[in-house]
């Protein structure tokens, strides 16, 4: 029974769910401060390529390269975030979408480094590195009643899960603090927030960079999960997919991103039997969802009701 549950297929799907949750959060955080950034695919690419190249060329340990990848994405997030302050709403969305495309074109053309559209192969897989490590300190998977393969994916899932839980913990704690209140107030009314003593420049760039960092982290982990990356992994489609995770689940609450990423990663797997029509179905679903529930499946009111507080959505 346990062996059945530890089927690498389920574990692999679980890995992608966890990575997609991170990606959804990378859009959620800037959005919680009122910034619609569609640059996540680009930042994800930066994290993925940085970490992959560092491991391939310098054989640095993965925890270092992944962190460097995420940090670089975060720093570029600051650099992009500062000029982007002048832009709001759809302008920001399109500019960040453009940023992502520029990054992708750069990956395609910077052949000496990225091997262009052929992509980078042979990226060390995180789970396998963990297996090597476990063996080096004398832990055999068989001692735990696991096959090598099961150990690889189980350890990968566990690492990803810990990271996702940490990010969730971080974002939720931050949200219920001075920082989080500043983000929400900027989202709801920037001018009013500023006259309440909030340094909107600082907080907007902070949120933007946090989103970029999370996206970079997710990208680096993606590279070390799948073992192969190419520029087409970080295209317009990825950016839109990430946006849809968050909006589908509900962009007002953090749990919406988690929910959206989970459901929508499972959906193509579930819909394998209607494979030919699944994207048609997907498109229709988005239109209906927006018409019925434009704030996403989960929203603030639902959230508060679940917490047992009696609040009704106003009619004014």
């Amino acid at each position, binding site marked *: 029974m346990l062996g059945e549950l530890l089927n690498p297929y389920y574990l692999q799907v679980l890995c992608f769910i966890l990575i997609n949750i991170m990606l959804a959060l990378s859009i959620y955080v800037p959005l919680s401060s009122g910034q619609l950034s569609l640059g996540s695919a680009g930042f994800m690419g930066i994290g993925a390529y940085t970490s992959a190249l560092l491991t391939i060329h310098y054989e640095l340990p993965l925890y270092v390269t992944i962190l460097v990848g995420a940090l670089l994405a975060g720093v570029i997030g600051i650099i992009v975030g500062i000029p982007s302050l002048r832009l709001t709403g759809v302008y920001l969305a399109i500019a960040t979408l453009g940023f992502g495309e520029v990054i992708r074109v750069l990956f395609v053309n910077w052949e000496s480094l990225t091997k262009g559209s052929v992509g980078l192969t042979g990226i060390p897989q995180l789970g396998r590195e963990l297996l090597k490590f476990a063996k080096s300190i004398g832990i055999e998977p068989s001692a735990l009643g696991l096959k090598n393969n099961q150990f690889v994916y189980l350890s990968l899932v566990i690492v990803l899960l810990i990271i996702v839980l940490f990010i969730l913990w971080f974002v939720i704690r931050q949200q219920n*603090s001075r*920082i989080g209140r500043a983000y929400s*107030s900027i989202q*709801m009314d920037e001018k009013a927030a500023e*006259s309440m003593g909030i340094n909107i420049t600082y907080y907007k760039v902070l949120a933007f960079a946090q989103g970029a960092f999370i996206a970079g982290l997710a990208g680096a982990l993606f590279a070390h999960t799948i073992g192969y990356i190419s520029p087409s992994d970080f295209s317009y489609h990825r950016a839109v997919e990430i946006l849809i995770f968050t909006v589908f689940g509900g962009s007002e609450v953090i749990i919406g991103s988690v929910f959206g990423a989970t459901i929508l990663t499972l959906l193509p797997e579930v819909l394998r039997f209607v494979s030919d029509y699944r994207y048609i179905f997907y498109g229709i679903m988005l239109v209906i969802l927006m018409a019925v529930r434009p704030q996403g499946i989960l929203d603030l009111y639902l959230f508060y009701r679940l917490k047992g507080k009696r609040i009704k959505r106003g009619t004014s």
Partner: protein
Amino acid sequence: MVLEVKNITKRFGGITALKNISFTIQQGEIYGLIGPNGAGKTTMFNCITNIVEPTEGEIFFNGEKITKLKPYKITEKGICRTYQNIRLFPQMTALQNVMVGGHSRISAGVFRSVIRTKSQKQEEKLLKEKSEELLELVGLGQLKDQFAENLAYGQQRRLEIARALASNPTLLLLDEPAAGMNETETDNLFDLIKKIQSMGITVLIIEHDMSLVMRLCDRITVLNFGEKLAEGTPDEIQNNEAVIEAYLGKEEEETIA
């Protein structure tokens, strides 16, 4: 002298919204800013909080020049305001709204907020207590967990005042706080502003309700088409020829009655 406005001029394109305005406000005063619509009152507020930058002139707060400071810095210095067209954070509860107002009075950064250090917990607790007190003060204690967007109009106005008070201001700017209120509510507002004055906070108020202004204010400046028409105590203003002609004349009956 809490606030000194010195020769402020503000032009938008070819239109002069404020023309060489000066006045000073003393510690503990309730100071009124009145004038017909379009006289430039809200623009004056915006210049003081530097939401729009004055074209010419300087503003001093407690002797310090604040003309070029960012709006949030000005709030940190101790000036906070409310808006004519209420600008609450609609999907936050009343309590959260007030706590946002206290932003500049606590200091936790990302690290301390996430780790929840002892000092961070302490300041959050104090801020929450203070915010609840302020909600009680404005009479919204029972409604602290309601979303701001679901409050009644008068309640929203009072919530905005509580939010501004949370920033511990020395000078509070109120932009038409009585707009849309009925008589009872206006009377409550009068008491509230008096209470705020008794807390040692100086108040600068824009208001159209003349009876309230005359009862409330220690001194008043009258603006008309961006120019300063008169300054003085309510009595002086009520008897000022120019003011009566330009502004009070046609409304005298209903407002002074």
